[in-house]
């Protein structure tokens, strides 16, 4: 049972780590989109939708 709990905790840790990878990528991607929007329209985006 203890082993199962440890494995589950590891799975939760991996899920949270995956979300952290995604969050970091999203921040970098927002910067790219902002730069492109400013070049195209002169304005920065007001919001973003992450899918």
């Amino acid at each position, binding site marked *: *049972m203890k082993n*199962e*709990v440890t*494995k*589950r905790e590891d*799975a*939760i840790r*991996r*899920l*949270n*780590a*995956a*979300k*952290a*990878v*995604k969050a*970091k*990528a*999203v921040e*970098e*991607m*927002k910067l*790219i*989109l*902002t730069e*492109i*929007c400013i070049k*195209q329209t002169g304005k920065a*985006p*007001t*919001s*973003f*939708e*992450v*899918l």
Partner: protein
Amino acid sequence: MIHLSEGDINRTSPYTVRVVEGSRAVFTTDYGVLYIISFDKDDTSMSRTTYQFVILNANNRQSPRDKKLRDTIISIVEDFFNCNNEVMLYICETGDGKQAMRNRLFNYWFSSFINKGQYTLLQSSVKDEDGTDNFFAVICRNDYPEAKKVVSEFFDIVILFNNKPKTN
């Protein structure tokens, strides 16, 4: 280091795609919505390196049932697999509670892609410690050298989450 081929993508993509920073693709839809797609290296989620498929748009605008959007996304993903025989991981964003809708959108986008029979798609959802449903998918080419191990690990993870051990 993975890469994308702008030339190959644009041979099949309805929208003109520009590759930036090697592994990110940018395009604008007929509705004027600017999208970016990325494949980010992830060494922590599984026992092997995966690449997270991340997509976002500017100004929070949608392109409802835009077939050209779907076909452009598929062109980019196909190119990812043509250029890199790697494992792709997709986790639906959960921040606003719309993850089930995103999962349906993912299914709409990828149904025709998977029907080509060259890929293995694994999908599930698990509840995290807050009770939030997390929809996720793993895709690899059928000829990925460790495809069977990917399938096995995927189901191990799902079983671990869904069989919550008793604490008494």
